[in-house]
């Protein structure tokens, strides 16, 4: 039997190659994702290790604030802690580290780096203790006075400047110019992970990045003969409450695990697309095996007739699947490294910069890629294999099998699976975190499988309806294409189902994005009565100094204005079951001039007072207050990067879409943060001023901050839409692979059909069909299948979009917008894709030798 399996494999190389291709592509994306994540992880692991290479211990605050995005913020410590440390036995040297946001502006006025979507823009102090400073000067000299800055070599190259040039640093303080005194390398590389780095003297750093007299942490070098643990133990005995000492090893491990977590999100995001590609691949494997085994029915029956058991037939088919799966997975893994490079480019195009280093293929990646690829192939072949084993020996004597009508049980099961999917989907959307992902993903998968199970039941009438114009437009070739597309409903519907998946997701994303854009427009139109928005283009990694908001406030023609910033806080709530943020009680709190805010926006007050908030007063979104059990007058304990504060609830508001969940005034915001950086400045102009005039004036005011864009509302909406589009294009590109795999599936099915119909094609050629007409028959069949799959996909995508908007209406996704134009383009493209998928099979059909064809068995 093994011999039979192997012979069969070798005898159908082309067919195997096509089947395998579907697996290869899916596995390539999956291993590419894993390789990319491993590579990035390895890069940063070594980066963090070298950052603390010469350090033995780190002294820091015990106050930690978790961010909803997983980046912890730690409170600064008094600078005079240094004295306690140096006096501790076992300490050889110690030096404070001060870090913060610093955007470098090159001499030509262009900002360097892309902190919104890539490595951060870091500022800090130049370490004087060689062992504690991971940077080495490669040109020029360290900063000697308050006007000097040392910049990483990569930024100098990008910005096109060098030693002696003047650069500007944009920080939480006023923009300040410096002379580049030197360029530095981070260990062996030009920049730590692509971050831009500006290092100044300690005094200047304290001034720019912390409140004077405080530092972020203090690095310690132990005396020789003292271990990391010993020096930490000695320090712990001396340090006051609220300040701790940890080993450099622990500090490195923390950074690495924080990054691991961040990479985890990223990994999951990309793996979702790999899984989609693999599921589509599974459909194609299932279909190919089904068709091939139906074609080989007589051969299988002959095997049974000469004494092969059902078990042997099943195992023979599964053996074939195992071989295909294994081989394709290995090739896919090999392509994974290339895919990783492609993915990096793709993410780069979407504004997410990933440092380029050598590719890491870990044994885990190899094991996962090969294991998953092989298992999916096997799983997809199980049903066809079982069906093959049921071929009775007598079938060897019969001619072609007729495809049975789908039994009622199939329809019942199909509807059941779809219903299960819908329940999961809806359930997932009402939950948070991993449960949501599992629910939505599982629900979508069930819906796809359910529709695929139902497919054969409705494929015939629907395909005939879709192909209705063909005979009228294309005559006999149209009739033949329509008949061919509807003669094997199971084959057609499974082939179409593979395409359906990719298209459904594309359609869903398109609807989601259009709805999100429409919702943003609606929020701005309905509840934003301001006229201009100054946008920093950043969110958590930086912003604009509050100096800009101060300057805006006194600009002529400005009636009301406020800087808007987001504070990271950890809240202790009376009831913990709150959807405050993705990581438990970590939340963003909006900080703004609440008096001005009430003039510029409509907070949609529901109780108490939400404007003119005093120090340590907080306003809460109504639904959050309800779920957390908070009412006006209640106290909330909030931990901010500067320490714990008790906030009093003064009022509740409904406009969560614009203002978020929590809101405090500037006094509280100033007290709660070290880095005072506005994300945006919202402006309302006076009644008698022209918006354009004020906009021009504000552009002048904002000139020192080249990252700030002064936008009117139309421009702001457009810039938001642009950000969506960028992400959208990334998602489309990643889904594109699933669509390509589905097209391979269509080509595969058509090739098998052409092979199967050799005789009738030969007959048609004999009685006068020319090659062009024969190719057209294959091509139109392909177009019909593609359009059928696309139609199914768009309907499902529409349903997904509708459910999504229902579920998220309260979070600001209030408008269901169907991008009819985009969906029409998808439809037309799919028709064209059908033409492309038919290219090879049609060519093969056209090349058919008439005599051989009519003579063939």
């Amino acid at each position: 039997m093994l011999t039979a399996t192997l012979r069969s494999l070798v005898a159908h190389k082309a067919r195997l190659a096509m089947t395998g291709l579907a697996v290869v592509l899916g596995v390539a994306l999956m291993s590419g994702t894993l390789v990319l994540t491993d590579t990035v992880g390895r890069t940063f692991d070594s980066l963090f290790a070298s950052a603390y290479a010469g350090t033995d211990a780190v002294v820091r605050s015990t106050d930690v604030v978790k961010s909803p995005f997983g980046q912890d913020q730690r409170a600064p410590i008094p600078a005079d802690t240094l004295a306690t440390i140096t006096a501790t036995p076992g300490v050889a040297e110690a030096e404070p580290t001060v870090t913060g946001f610093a955007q470098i502006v090159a001499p030509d006025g262009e900002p360097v780096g892309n902190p919104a979507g890539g490595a951060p823009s870091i500022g800090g102090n130049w370490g004087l203790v060689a062992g504690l400073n991971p940077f080495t000067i490669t040109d020029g000299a360290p900063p000697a006075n308050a006007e000097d800055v040392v910049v990483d070599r990569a930024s100098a190259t990008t910005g096109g400047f060098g030693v002696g040039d003047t650069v500007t640093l944009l920080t939480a303080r006023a923009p300040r110019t410096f002379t580049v005194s030197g360029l530095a390398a981070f260990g062996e590389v030009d920049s730590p992970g692509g971050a831009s780095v500006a290092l100044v003297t300690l005094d200047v750093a304290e001034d720019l990045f912390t409140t004077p007299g405080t530092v972020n942490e203090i690095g310690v070098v132990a005396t020789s003969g003292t271990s990391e643990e010993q020096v930490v133990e000695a320090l712990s005995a001396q340090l006051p409450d609220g300040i701790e000492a940890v080993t450099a090893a622990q500090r490195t491990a923390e950074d690495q695990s924080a990054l691991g977590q961040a990479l985890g999100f990223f990994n999951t995001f990309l793996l979702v697309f790999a899984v989609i590609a693999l599921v589509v691949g599974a459909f194609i494997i299932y279909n190919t095996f089904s068709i091939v085994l139906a074609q080989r029915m007589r051969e299988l029956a002959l095997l049974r007739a000469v004494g092969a058991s059902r078990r042997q037939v099943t195992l023979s088919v599964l053996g074939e699947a195992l071989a295909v799966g294994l081989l394709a997975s290995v090739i896919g893994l090999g392509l994974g490294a290339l895919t990783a490079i492609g993915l990096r480019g793709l993410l780069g195009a979407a504004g997410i910069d990933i440092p380029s280093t050598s590719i890491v293929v870990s044994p885990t990646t190899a094991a996962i890629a090969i294991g998953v690829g092989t298992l999916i192939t096997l799983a997809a072949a199980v049903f066809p294999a079982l069906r093959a084993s049921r071929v009775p020996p007598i079938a060897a004597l019969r001619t072609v099998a007729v495809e049975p009508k789908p039994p009622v049980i199939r329809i019942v099961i199909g509807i059941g699976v779809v219903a299960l999917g819908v329940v999961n989907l809806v359930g997932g959307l009402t939950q948070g975190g991993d449960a949501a992902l599992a629910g939505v993903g599982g629900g979508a998968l069930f819906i796809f499988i359910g529709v695929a199970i139902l497919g054969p039941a409705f494929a015939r009438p629907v395909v005939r309806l879709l192909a209705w114009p063909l005979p009228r437009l294309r005559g006999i070739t149209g009739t033949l294409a329509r008949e061919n597309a509807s003669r094997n409903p199971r084959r057609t519907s499974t082939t179409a189902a593979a395409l359906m998946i990719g298209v459904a997701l594309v359609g869903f994303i398109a609807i989601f994005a259009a709805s999100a854009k429409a919702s943003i427009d609606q929020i701005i139109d309905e509840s934003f009565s301001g006229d201009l928005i100054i946008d920093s283009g950043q969110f958590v990694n930086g912003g604009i100094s509050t100096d800009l908001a101060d300057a805006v406030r006194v600009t002529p023609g400005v009636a009301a204005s406020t800087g808007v910033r987001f504070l990271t806080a950890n809240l202790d709530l009376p009831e913990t079951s709150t959807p405050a943020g993705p990581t438990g009680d970590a939340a963003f709190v909006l900080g703004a001039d609440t008096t001005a805010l009430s003039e510029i926006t409509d907070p949609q007050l529901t109780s108490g007072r939400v404007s003119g908030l005093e120090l340590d007063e907080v306003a809460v979104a109504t639904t959050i207050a309800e779920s957390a059990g908070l009412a006006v007058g209640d106290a909330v304990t909030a931990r901010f990067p500067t320490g714990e504060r008790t906030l009093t609830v003064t009022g509740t508001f409904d406009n969560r879409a614009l203002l978020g969940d929590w809101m405090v005034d500037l006094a509280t915001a100033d007290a709660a943060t070290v880095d005072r950086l506005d994300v945006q400045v919202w402006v309302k102009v006076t009644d008698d001023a022209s918006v354009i005039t004020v906009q021009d004036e504000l552009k002048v005011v904002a000139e020192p901050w080249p990252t700030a864009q002064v936008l009117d509302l139309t421009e702001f909406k457009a810039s938001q839409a642009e950000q969506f589009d960028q992400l959208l294009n990334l998602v489309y590109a990643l889904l594109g692979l699933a669509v390509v795999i589905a097209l391979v599936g269509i080509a595969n099915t058509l090739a098998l059909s052409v092979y199967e119909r050799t005789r009738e094609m030969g007959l048609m050629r004999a009685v006068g069909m020319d090659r062009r007409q024969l190719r057209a028959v294959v091509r139109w069949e392909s177009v019909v299948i593609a359009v059928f799959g696309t139609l199914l996909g768009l309907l499902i995508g529409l349903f997904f979009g509708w459910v999504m908007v229902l579920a998220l209406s309260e979070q600001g996704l209030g408008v269901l917008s169907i991008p009819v134009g985009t969906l029409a383009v998808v439809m037309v493209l799919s028709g064209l894709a059908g033409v492309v998928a038919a290219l090879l099979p049609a060519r093969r059909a056209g090349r058919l030798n008439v005599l051989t064809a009519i003579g063939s068995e």
Partner: protein
Amino acid sequence: MTTTESTTGPAADPQPPVLAARAFDAVKVYGTGDTEVRALDGVTCGFEQARFTAIMGPSGSGKSTLMHCVAGLDSLTSGSVYLGDTELTSLRERELTELRRDRIGFVFQAFNLVPTLTAAENISLPMDLAGRKPDKGWMDEVVQTVGLADRLGHRPSELSGGQQQRVAVARALASQPEIIFADEPTGNLDSRAGAEILGFMRRAVDELGQTIVMVTHDPIAAGYANRALFLADGKIVDEMAAPNAERVLDRMKRFGD
């Protein structure tokens, strides 16, 4: 032009016949060197208009190859083939296709019909491919002749073998081709259905003036023809006017000698 020179038998007709198709010194060689097979080895022959000609011969005699070459399905190694005044060997693939579509009818042994098309659609297939409207009156007459009026909406899988062959004959007749080539048209049928098909073909020649060339190894089938050509080893070895089953059988037996 009108002679049938290298045929060995006596001339069948008193006056020179008009030829619908003819072959001159047709040679067809398959393979090269040791594996070389001369399927046709210098065949010259003609097929008279409005006549029913049978090509007879044992397996491997080249009778099917001759038909394929005259019908534009296969090309000659050397020599020439004419359909009416058209020389086939100089035609390109596309022109051959159009020639088969517009000027030739085919009836094969089996798998004559496109399974996805109804009987009616199969009958009009060549004309549909050409984008021509079938002549309604003629179609009706053909359908009546082969007795398929009540089966037109059926697909091949819903028809018996004999009915399928009748549809095939109807298709061949429907486009009023200059010549119909039938390749063992009764090979897969029982004797009754076979006799029916042969009867239709005979009537098509007698009543409609159709030209038919049939390849067969069945002496009874040959008995329906006006003339039988005998091939052996790629050469025409004999010819028989007004053949009947017995005489043909006798002649065939001699091939075994």
